[in-house]
């Protein structure tokens, strides 16, 4: 399934919350709408049919709407709704959770009195800002953080809150105010796109806020509210709780909101905030900004020479560049203006184990190739590129799946019934009818056993 990474992670966080916390979350229409938007399309269909229906919905109806070939999606959608306690189930019917239903109805039909969608300022701002300014502000704030991480900033250091967050999320290590070092996780973080980066930091922020005795429900309400605000509109602080006002200070540091002064009574959401729960792309991509950061630090872009015998010569004295190379090159000697090293199986494996991919290594070497190498076609020696990719394949030689092996069926019919059911659920990993064996995932096992008890034993 091509679900973007950030969505899965915020969904996972929500699924991990206890039922009581979720019920409090669902009291806000804006939050319900945002959660609705995060669900898969099939779940949208189910929620919408149940939304204005007072009576529970028979499960057989749902079964009849979905084609047999899409049982897997139906199963996934219901599982999602179940794990977030959005639906109530009885033996043969399902209904929407009441709080969730009321809030989502309010979100769609209006009539919300809780101000959960934010309160626009009713007075004119004397220092009004336009969308272009907000975009620039958001980019500047976010890039300040990225530049600080790669150590190419203009010497400006992000606020203490940001530093704490970077440290907590394991992206950097060290003790502020002493200079911090970027970690391997940090390098991977830089290669993600902006939205994934923001969610990574915000989820860490959620974890941290719990330690600071901030109410996770209010934090989430605020984040989801931001996702439904309008870009370019100013909003009043009056509807925010004290916790949310504290949050506003932190979010300002990340560039998610803009305030002219910290004492200002109004705030503007930036594009980083308003696209949080939508599919719309964010303006800048992180790898582009990292590339520009690297290019600027070096003055000229290329400095790496890679030879067919896997030897690497890098004309640089920047500690950052050398640190990056050290991730996947076995460095041997260091001179005043260059380092030499060799790409070996061990050095590449070390990088792969740390989660860096072969493609990332090849891209890095291509982007930073020395002008001298640009004469060659193809740019990088094919032997080396192929070998790096082969080393990656080597690590994936064994594909393993935990689960259960089913055997000893009474007859072919029994095998067919169970194997078909497992296939519909999408839990079937491997089957061989003539041997009378099939393998299902760990998650699917219980359902197969239940099904067996219902269908086959029930017939007797």
């Amino acid at each position, binding site marked *: 399934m091509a679900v973007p990474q950030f969505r899965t992670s915020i969904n996972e966080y929500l699924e991990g919350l206890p039922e009581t916390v979720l019920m409090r979350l669902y009291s806000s229409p804006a939050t319900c709408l945002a959660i609705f938007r995060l669900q898969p399309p099939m779940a949208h269909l189910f929620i919408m049919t149940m939304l204005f229906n007072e009576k529970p919905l028979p499960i057989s109806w749902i079964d009849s709407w979905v084609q047999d070939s899409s049982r897997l999606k139906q199963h996934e959608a219901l599982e999602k709704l179940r794990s977030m306690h959005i639906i109530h189930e009885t033996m043969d019917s399902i209904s929407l959770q009441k709080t969730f239903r009321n809030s989502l109805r309010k979100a769609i039909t209006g009539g919300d009195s809780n101000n959960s969608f934010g309160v626009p300022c009713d007075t004119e701002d004397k220092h009004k800002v336009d969308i272009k300014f907000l975009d620039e502000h958001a980019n500047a704030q976010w890039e300040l953080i990225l530049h600080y991480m790669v150590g190419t900033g203009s010497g400006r250091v992000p606020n203490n809150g940001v530093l704490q967050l970077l440290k907590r999320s394991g992206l950097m290590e060290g003790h502020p105010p002493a200079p911090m070092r970027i970690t391997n996780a940090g390098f991977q973080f830089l290669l993600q796109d902006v939205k994934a980066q923001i969610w990574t930091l915000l989820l860490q922020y959620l974890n941290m806020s719990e330690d600071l005795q901030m109410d996770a429900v209010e934090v989430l309400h605020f984040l989801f509210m931001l996702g439904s605000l309008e870009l370019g509109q100013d909003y009043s602080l009056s509807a925010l709780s004290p916790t949310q006002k504290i949050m506003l200070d932190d979010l300002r540091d990340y560039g998610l909101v803009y305030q002219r002064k910290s004492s200002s009574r109004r705030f503007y959401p930036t594009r980083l905030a308003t696209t949080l729960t939508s599919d719309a792309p964010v303006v800048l991509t992180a790898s582009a900004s990292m590339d520009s950061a690297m290019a600027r630090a070096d003055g000229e872009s290329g400095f790496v020479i890679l030879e067919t015998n896997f030897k690497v010569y890098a004309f640089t004295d920047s500690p950052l560049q050398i640190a990056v190379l050290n991730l996947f090159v076995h460095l041997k000697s260091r001179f005043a203006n260059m380092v030499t090293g060799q790409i070996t199986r061990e050095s590449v494996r070390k990088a792969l184990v740390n989660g860096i991919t072969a493609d990332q290594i090849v891209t890095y070497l291509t982007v930073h190739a020395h002008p001298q190498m640009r004469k060659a076609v193809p740019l990088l020696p094919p032997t080396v590129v192929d070998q790096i990719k082969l080393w990656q394949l080597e690590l994936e030689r*064994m*594909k393993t799946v935990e689960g259960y092996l089913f055997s000893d*069926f009474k007859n072919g019919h029994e095998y067919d019934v169970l194997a078909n059911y497992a296939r519909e659920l999408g839990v079937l990993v491997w089957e061989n009818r003539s041997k009378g064996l099939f*393998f299902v995932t760990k998650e699917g096992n219980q359902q197969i056993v239940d099904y067996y008890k219902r269908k086959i034993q029930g017939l007797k």
Partner: protein
Amino acid sequence: MPRAVKGVFVECDPSIKSLVLNIDAKSHNVVIADLDDEHLVIDERQVDNVKRQLDAQLAENTFNPAELENNPEK
């Protein structure tokens, strides 16, 4: 009544599979079921052990230039 046995399903090349069978031949507690040329089911407690032994065997078959420099005699 069908039987369900807990285990870890492994998909790999025939060459890797034969190495796994080799490991099993020593202790007989690894492989639960030999499905076909590229698939088998192994004991979940042995997965890490098998991966380690496989790595070691494959490392023996590779040329390591760094090692060569340290011991030129070899």
